[in-house]
């Protein structure tokens, strides 16, 4: 249940009208927490390539991500709850990305910024991970090469909407469904050796 329904007014009593100090409204704890969480996202920019430059545009003075409560950029995964993967992730970097993701405290969300992070983009190549969802669960995919700042902002707003509506992150959902290993980056999946050319 959303905290603030559309068109509804807050059930807060006007002290002057009621003549008393008892200001309160009722809601569910989860809704309250989700509302607070959605507006205080601490992103970790995992910026590797061109999208990282556009991410800089989004957080800097002109577009100013702080208007949406997500500007406390943290470079330590221990202090972040939103992983923004901005740019191409290659196979050499994949273990590092997984490690960073594992180091982030729960609850955590992942935005895949740009087509390279989402699917490998036009790099269908021998060293490029074909989408970070091979490695980590992704909550919001933002298309574009690179996405315009507006597109990334829309992605963040979508994530906030998801969080507010009480939707669990992909990570928690897969853990609950017992498919936690689906995203585990395990050495069992080694690529078979190439055939004779």
């Amino acid at each position: 249940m959303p905290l603030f329904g559309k068109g509804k007014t807050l059930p807060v009593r006007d002290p002057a009208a009621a003549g008393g100090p008892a200001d309160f409204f009722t809601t569910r704890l989860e809704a309250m927490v989700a509302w607070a969480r959605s507006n205080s996202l601490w992103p970790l920019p995992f910026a590797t390539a061109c999208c990282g430059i556009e991410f800089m545009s989004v957080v800097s003075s002109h577009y100013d991500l702080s208007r949406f409560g997500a500007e406390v950029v943290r470079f330590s995964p221990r202090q972040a709850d939103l992983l923004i993967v901005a740019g191409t992730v290659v196979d050499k970097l994949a273990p590092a990305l997984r490690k960073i993701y594992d180091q982030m405290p729960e609850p955590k969300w992942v935005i895949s910024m740009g087509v390279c992070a989402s699917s490998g983009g036009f790099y269908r190549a021998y060293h490029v991970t074909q989408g970070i969802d091979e490695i980590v669960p992704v909550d919001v995919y933002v298309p574009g090469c690179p996405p315009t700042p507006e597109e990334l902002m829309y992605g963040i707003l979508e994530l906030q909407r998801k969080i507010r509506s009480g939707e669990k992150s992909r990570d928690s959902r897969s853990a609950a469904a017992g498919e936690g290993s689906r995203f585990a980056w395990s050495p069992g999946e080694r690529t078979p050796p190439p055939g004779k050319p």
Partner: protein
Amino acid sequence: MSIAAGTGPAGLHPHPNSVEAPPTLSPSAERLRDRFARSPLSEKVAVLDLDLPTVEVSPADWPTVARFLRDDPECRYDLFLDLAGVDNAKRPGRPTRFEAVVHLHSLSRDEHVRAKVLLPDGAEPRLPSVIDVWPAANWFEREAYDLFGFDFPGHPNQRRLLCHDAFVGHPLRKDYSPGQRWFFAEEDLRMPAWAVHTEERAGHFETQTISIGPSHPATHGIIHLVARLDGERITRAETQIGYMHRCFEKMSETHTWNQVIPFCDRLNYVSAMINGVGYVRTVEKMLGIEVPDRGRLVRTILSEFSRIMDHCVNIGTNLVDIGGLTNFWYLYQPRESIYGLIEACCGARLTVSYVRVGGLAIDVPEDFVPRCRALIESIPRFVDDVERLVTRNKIVRNRLSGTGVVTKEQAIGWGFTGPMLRSTGVAYDVRRSRPYDFYDRFDWDIPISSDGDNFARYLVRMEEIRQSLAIIRQALDIFPASGPVNSDDWHVVLPPKDAVYHDMESLIFHFKLIMEGIRVPRGERYDWIEGANGELGFYAISEGGAGPYRLKPRPPCFPMMAAFEDMIVGGGISDAIATLGTLNIIAGELER
């Protein structure tokens, strides 16, 4: 063996290009051929006259010839620019399957030369390392080992550079499938041998080996620095890269000539326009077509704006690394205005894909000139303000002055170009040394400094912003109000849409171009321009197919990053961070 046209080194087949070689040689090739004929090496090399004077040599003679090319007073090729491996498996007529193509520049004679080492078939491709001749060869040889499997006896640290350590095979060989990936896990990562087997000397107060990166706020993209510290002083360091190796060269072999342009824009994505211009100029030279003045001026103007942006980002992020956030936010305003201009021209902000072989994707908007004029009026204020905040700032001076010092000799040996080389006192700028487009008609200066430290690089970049503004101002003065931006060679450029609908011939050209793409005649070409951080070259080989047979960019920041591990030894760890910022490393270009 004499050094007549059309013969290869002793024991090798005649050169296929020699048949088409003109009877008269270019003066520089003539001089080089003459010089070799007078030398004891006359039996060992063949001098060809391609787009550049080209020396063909066998691996056994390569170190001697390399030393001769560097030291002989009539050669003096002191700047090692690039080493490109080539696999001739699908290139009929070449004498050997593998060849290593080296590009060199002589600062004193202002000339390029190409050296080809033909690696004999039947054995592992092997050629001696030339690190002792040009220290810059270090990473280029590692790269060739990684991507082509060339063996370099004498190389002190021959291991994979770009591909991960669990990779099998050599991806740029023609028999490697472009999409073949290999699983890589954390335990597969190989650290430098010295970092694994540490022999701590007794008496050290505190020695430890640390890893900075791959994900670290100061690493400007994804770079992994392994450093051994004695207290805060770095005693040994090694940089590991490849965390952004996204296979540009293999991808360009699987796409058509025009489809490669978006890949080029993602090399140096901070100044994407310059990369596109560098690439299409190479292809245009191979095709022998000319772009009209208006098109070339648009390229010049937007390239210079891109250079300004690149320097703004570099100065801004460098100051962020040493603790000053203000300038970064502040310099974003001119950047956003330039992004606005570029977006008005082509619809994209960052990775523009605006150039095409033969011109531009579309003409500029009507208000292009007034917009540019407004921009060059507004930008100096930001530069002045940052200058006031930074240049005499005591903290900045303490952090940047005297740190990361590179001498002139070191810079040349390491293969530096661009602001890094100019900050050591060498006035080498491609726009002046070999003016392309209209750079010889503009009045502008090459800023240099003699200090060679981090602060000198900051000052050089600040002054280059002003010089770029001067260039744009003069370019706008001669900008034609109307006229075509594209070549009228319909074998290369799409005919106007109107003509396609009403004229059969144009329709055919349109159809052929869309379905087959551009056909570039067989041959090879190295063409180079001044990128934002140094000489940006493209070495392209065409076999007459729909796309490049081989395309090797000469990434300006690659040799600088290679030298980084030597530059920081002896300094503090905090100086290393300040130095890394002034190198202007762009991961997309560094690792391609």
